[in-house]
């Protein structure tokens, strides 16, 4: 049977691939998220390592059709719970025209089971916010969450980062968005880019916090392989801040935002209230399932991870060729057309992920649920490690009696990678 509409999918094992994606698994909270990767950008930022391209004429129309074709190709099990978050990321989703966005929103709803109360999020660049009408149109399409790619409020930094907007545009977009009536407006900021004093960053954070936004994501600049920045760093034309300085900037970020009423609920994410925490992104950190559509999109069903072809144009070709299968998994089975890699995780790998992801969150690790999922009692198995790190102020044991949670402190967050390896050696 060819991939068709989910309603026809009575016998999932007759699908051309043998696993049943997004089937409910008892060990995973059964509320999957849906991610759509929009790869188009007007220019490629020198630090970015996402799958992005500059759009050629007519390409975005073909992209939209291909996403819908990919969505339709998934044999969703009838008993699978509906998606309760939908996230348009990129790239630059706001670069799509209104009609294209509408076709995606409506088309996805027809092809996939999306819950009526699902949270829809849209990433947008400040330069694409052309006035309150644009914002209202997005809101009226059903996007309740707007995530603005502000990156900086400092013109020199924006130029350095190769952005196409300036401070004035960023401030205007943020203020307008905050007044549009979204459930949540968030902004991304990048720090530790070099060439400026820490105090000016603290000042920038205070300014951002005062814009009326509900959520901020603050990322340390990462030098990814293959990016222009990394090449410049290697050639000695760009200096990365040293480890001590980066730690200092991290701590300053957290301290400043805490003083402005933003609570860090993840290593790089801050919200003014628990309800403003990003619901879709939280699925990544709590090991919930998600399906990714579009080039390079990743998916996880609770035990299997797979990823789509990374190159946007190759992804498009694969979907347009209407071939039934794509590559081959390590196990030898045929993969769906868009999928490049597939990996089945064993319990040990899942545990490692669960601990490393959980330690990134303020909530931390729910030790009881970990024990139920993996039959591992961290307090018993790594008791000495936990004691040592609690004494050193890196780990904290919180929660109610009978329901302990283990979480990283602010200093623990800085070294959460090594804490992970200590906890699950």
């Amino acid at each position, binding site marked *: 049977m060819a991939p068709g509409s989910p309603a026809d999918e009575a016998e999932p094992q007759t699908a051309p691939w043998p696993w049943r994606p997004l089937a409910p698994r008892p060990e995973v909270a059964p509320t999957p998220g849906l991610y759509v990767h929009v790869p188009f950008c007007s220019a490629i930022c020198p630090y970015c390592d996402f799958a992005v391209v500059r759009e050629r004429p007519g390409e975005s129309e073909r992209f939209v059709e291909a996403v819908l074709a990919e969505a339709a190709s998934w044999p969703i099990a009838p008993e699978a719970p509906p998606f309760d978050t939908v996230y348009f990321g990129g790239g630059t989703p706001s670069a799509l025209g209104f009609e294209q966005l509408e076709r995606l929103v409506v088309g996805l709803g027809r092809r996939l089971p999306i819950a009526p109360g699902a949270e829809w999020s849209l990433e947008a660049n400040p330069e694409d916010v052309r006035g309150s009408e644009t914002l209202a149109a997005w809101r009226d399409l059903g996007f309740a969450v707007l995530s603005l790619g502000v990156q900086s409020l400092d013109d020199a930094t924006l130029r350095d980062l190769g952005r196409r907007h300036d401070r004035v545009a960023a401030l205007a977009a943020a203020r307008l968005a905050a007044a549009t009536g979204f459930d949540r407006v968030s902004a991304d900021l990048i720090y530790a880019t070099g060439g400026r004093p820490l105090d000016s960053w603290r000042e920038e954070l205070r300014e951002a916090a005062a814009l009326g936004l509900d959520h901020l994501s603050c990322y340390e600049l990462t030098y990814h392989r293959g990016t222009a920045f990394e090449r410049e760093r290697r050639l000695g034309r760009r200096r990365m801040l040293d480890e001590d300085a980066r730690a200092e900037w991290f701590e300053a970020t957290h301290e400043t935002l805490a003083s402005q009423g933003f609570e860090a609920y993840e290593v790089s994410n801050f919200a003014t209230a628990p309800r403003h925490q990003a619901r879709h992104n939280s699925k990544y950190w709590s090991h919930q399932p998600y399906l990714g559509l579009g080039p390079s999109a990743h998916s996880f069903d609770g035990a299997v991870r797979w*990823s789509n072809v990374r190159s946007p144009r190759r992804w498009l070709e694969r979907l347009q060729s209407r071939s039934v299968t794509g590559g081959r998994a390590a196990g030898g089975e045929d993969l769906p057309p868009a999928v490049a890699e597939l990996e089945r995780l064993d319990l040990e790998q899942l545990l490692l992920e669960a601990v490393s992801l959980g330690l990134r969150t303020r909530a931390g690790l729910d030790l009881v649920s970990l024990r139920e999922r993996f039959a591992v009692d961290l307090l018993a198995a790594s008791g000495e490690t936990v004691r040592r790190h609690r004494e050193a102020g890196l780990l904290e044991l919180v929660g109610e009696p009978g329901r302990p949670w283990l979480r990283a402190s602010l200093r623990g967050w800085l070294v959460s990678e090594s804490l992970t390896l200590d906890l699950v*050696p």
Partner: protein
Amino acid sequence: MKNVRNFCIIAHIDHGKSTLADRLIQSCGAISDREFRDQVLDSMDIERERGITIKSNTITLPYTAQDGQLYELNLIDTPGHVDFSHEVRRSLMSCEGALLLVDASQGVEAQTVANLYLALEYDLELLPVINKIDLPSADVERAQEEIDSDLGLDPFEAVQVSAKTGQGVDQLLEAIVHKLPSPKGDPAEPTQALIFDAEYDPYRGVIMLCRVLNGELRVGQNIRLMHTERDYEIEELGRIMIERRPEKKLPTGSVGYVIAGVKNISDINVGDTITDQERPAHQPIPGYREAKPVVFSSIYPVTSDDYEDLAKALDKLKLNDAALTFDKDSSTALGFGFRCGFLGLLHLDVVQERLEREYDLSLVLSAPSVQYKVKMADGELRTIDNPSLYPEATKVDHVEEPFIKASVMVPERYLGAVMELCMERRGENTQFRYLSAERVELTCEMPLAEVLYDFYDKLKTVTQGYGSFDYEMTDYRSTDLVKVDILVNGDRVDALSQLVHRDKARPRAMKYCERLAETIPRQQFKIAIQGAIGGQIIARTTINAFRKDVTAKCYGGDITRKRKLLEKQREGKKRMKMVGAIEIPQEAFVSVLRSDK
């Protein structure tokens, strides 16, 4: 007997001894050109690669001389390094003559002189041979002068050869026949045969190589080894012509092999005398000395899983290397291993290399130590070569350490630098004599321990490679010994403890601390690395805590990447050794300890 010539070749390393041996074998037709491999006698890979001979081998060469008579030339190939001087001695005891090889481009070197004295000690007839005359840098006249001045031999007797091209080898064979004496000995006397080497054959057990001095050996004979007082019956004997060729008997003056049902190489002592059970000799051949290890080091496998393999490999090496000793040892930091005894640093090197190469093991060796005589306050005398067994300082009355007489031959312009090096190495009674206008032989008494610690490298550096070195053990002398411990956040790293002279304690400890600071990765807390004598801290470095390892972003796609990275790091972490709460990578030990030699 009058047509037998027993001789060896003695030379400095690299002077072409093995190549010359090959050429003699080829010229006598003992082996066809097709079978010929370079350096036939050096059968171990390391020997061939390094161009040195470790185990001595022997071979019988039939040679028809220009006088038309057939001669039996027994060539005994001797080890060319000071560590193996006991093996050299045994070989020399089996010969009447020796070829003293001098490199035409290098001239006489310290070891040549040392070997000359050894040969004279055994009353051998010496035939100087100037080798490598084909080299553009060859200076035959200078070599002749040095043979005269340094060795006191007649330079005009010296045969000039090129072992490489074969030039002069025929003249050399004639000189061997005419200038070296035939063996003396009495066939009617009770049997006396010297075991000068032994090897282990997995099918036949121990193969003893012997020189018959008096009487004879024959198949079926009931023999006794005089020092160990063990009795055996000869199953097989014969000559070695590349391969073993069985005979009925070995007459007086001959050299050959004996198989007598000896199971383990440690059951016999090389240097022992074989005699007849029914008609024993009155006394064994004099000059018997047991080969005793003088350098000790603990060997650990890098991965503890390899311990069993290491044990097996040492057992196998021991089959052929009676001088190697080993006992179980363990270290908190490095796990289970073996405390091994060696004849010297080269012996240690060779054993390590064979273990790593032939048995595919990756090893860490603790700092080499000499054997100290420790007189306790209560009068007890202890012999200690392992820092972990060193008693508390308050219970020690005094300590003695082994001394050597070191001899360095060097062009005169480096004399100052070498004297300085010897002084720095606690050398005493430094003396020098001019061998010629430009060449000096410097002798001094110094602790053996000082040679173990990068002495060769330093000597090579300060003399730009022109200095040659040789030593012999002399006596034990009083010393101011301390045990230096290395502490990581207060916990002692037992594998890094060492016994050193008080004056050397601080710099040595500092070097260890610095190297550890370079190789131990930053961890979640600050790490203090200290060197200490007892409770007194004498050196210190710190490794600051690392501050940040968390990645900024972790969404859908990054999770797989992150996990794979963590899995890789976890693998690396598993190879770490825990000292207290500190993780020390094995590489840190390797880097600290390997820099030692």
